[in-house]
């Protein structure tokens, strides 16, 4: 694996290998005196973030540091990007300075893909940490890791992805990965928040959350991305919350074993009720914990071996 740009088209065997590695990393770090592995000593990882982020950036930084890589954080707001430098020039600068891997988050869909093209010659690996409304593959991998842990396996499990699917790179990455790993994905959203071409995706679509909940093994709530909405996608926040929010009443419709996921940041009271987010069915903090191990596994598969096959 040279880059991790998307889960669409990711080999399920490779995805499973990354998840298995993450599992073993979690195991081996449990109860250790030194939470650090020497595996990526001498490798330089740069995070390049053009959008705000807490959990993803911190998670990648911890992952890199626990693998002994040198991690440098660049955020667009405090870099030469502010002086008008292009993404390409910034990326080439980072590669020339010695980055073995650039982890990029960018508001434009496809930015990571372009970056991988520009950095092919210096041989720098690229990880997509979220590009516009396109993909966020490590989030999908950590969601899959969390679901595997809670449900045992993803084969034939039914997973509902609920809310602002249109603007959600998390939803897009998840629906590709989860269905490649054998799960059935159902998208539950108002018609205005479904992406164009949804009928060609490996999913079923529903507009009635109450009807779907009793049959699912997991429900993934999405944040309503107000910052990407320019226009009226729904009448009011209150109406959205009533139709598509996971309230305490709705939680009772779920089977006992069902898992509640949210990629964060959560808007409590909007798409998810506070009591639901903090209930035992919620795996939201586990998602964050698993995120570190999954990103360690991704860096291991990208960087440990010099002659890593493409």
């Amino acid at each position, binding site marked *: 694996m040279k880059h991790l740009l998307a889960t669409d088209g990711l080999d399920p065997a490779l995805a499973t*290998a990354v998840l*298995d590695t993450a599992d073993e*990393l979690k195991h*081996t770090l449990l*109860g*250790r*005196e030194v939470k650090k592995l020497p*595996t990526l000593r001498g490798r330089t990882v740069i995070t390049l973030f053009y959008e705000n982020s807490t959990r993803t950036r911190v998670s990648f930084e911890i992952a890199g540091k626990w693998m002994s890589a040198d991690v440098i954080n660049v955020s667009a707001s405090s870099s030469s990007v502010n002086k008008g430098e292009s993404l390409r020039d910034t990326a080439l600068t980072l590669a020339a300075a010695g980055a073995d891997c650039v982890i990029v988050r960018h508001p434009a869909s496809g930015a990571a893909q372009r970056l991988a093209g520009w950095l092919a010659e210096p041989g720098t690996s690229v990880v997509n940490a979220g590009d516009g409304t396109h993909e966020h593959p490590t989030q999908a991998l950590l969601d899959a890791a969390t679901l595997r842990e809670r449900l045992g396996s993803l084969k034939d499990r039914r997973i509902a992805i609920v809310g602002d699917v249109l603007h959600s790179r998390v939803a897009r990455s998840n629906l590709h990965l989860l269905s490649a790993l054998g799960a059935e994905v159902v998208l539950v959203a108002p018609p205005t928040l479904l992406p164009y071409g949804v009928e060609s995706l490996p999913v079923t679509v529903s507009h009635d959350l109450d009807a779907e909940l009793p049959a699912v093994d997991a429900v993934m709530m999405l944040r309503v991305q107000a910052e990407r909405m320019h226009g009226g996608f729904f009448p009011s926040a209150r109406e959205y919350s009533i139709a598509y929010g996971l309230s305490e009443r709705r939680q009772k419709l779920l089977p006992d074993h069902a898992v509640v996921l949210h990629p964060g940041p959560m808007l409590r009271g909007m798409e998810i009720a506070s009591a639901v987010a903090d209930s035992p069915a919620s795996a939201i903090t586990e998602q964050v914990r698993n995120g570190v191990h999954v990103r360690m596994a991704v860096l291991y598969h990208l960087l440990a*071996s010099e002659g890593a096959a493409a």
Partner: protein
Amino acid sequence: MSSRPRDAAGSAGERELLTAGDVARTIARMAHQVIEKTANGAESTTPPVLLGIPTRGTPLAARLAGKIGEFSGVRPPTGALDVTLYRDDLRRRPPRALEQTQLPPDGIDDRVVILVDDVLFSGRTIRAALDALRDHGRPRAVQLAVLVDRGHRELPIRADYVGKNVPTARTEDVSVLLAEIDGRDSVVLRAAEPAAAPGEDS
């Protein structure tokens, strides 16, 4: 998990060094040596911790501990220590799957730890294991038990308990087969295969 069974089909350039009976007797003899050297079973001593190095060191450690328990009345705790993340040849190989690491619940601090592996070759695996061990705690002492020592050390490392010393050529391949993984017990020496991939740096 890369614990697929080894190819058990006999071929022309293959010689059996230890039969199933030999393997059992060898492990029993090593158990006696461990008991003698660590005074296991005596009231004043805490039993050693046996850590197998995956893949085949793990079942070997369990069997050795079973025999030690049988002969001395005290079965030492066992575990597994994967060293993949500490190897010095990661850069040169395609990424490998990690194996299980499982330490006994009481940990390894102030205990005698006996690392258990199937074949001792270059010594690089053991170097990696010593580094891994240091991140898990501080044992009182570390010893090494191997079923086969085939020579060709590249580091100043030697075993405390050796099942069988086998003089080999560098190009030859020594395979330990264990019933838990391969369906039968045996140690086999294979002649050099010119086009073979470089051997595991045991």
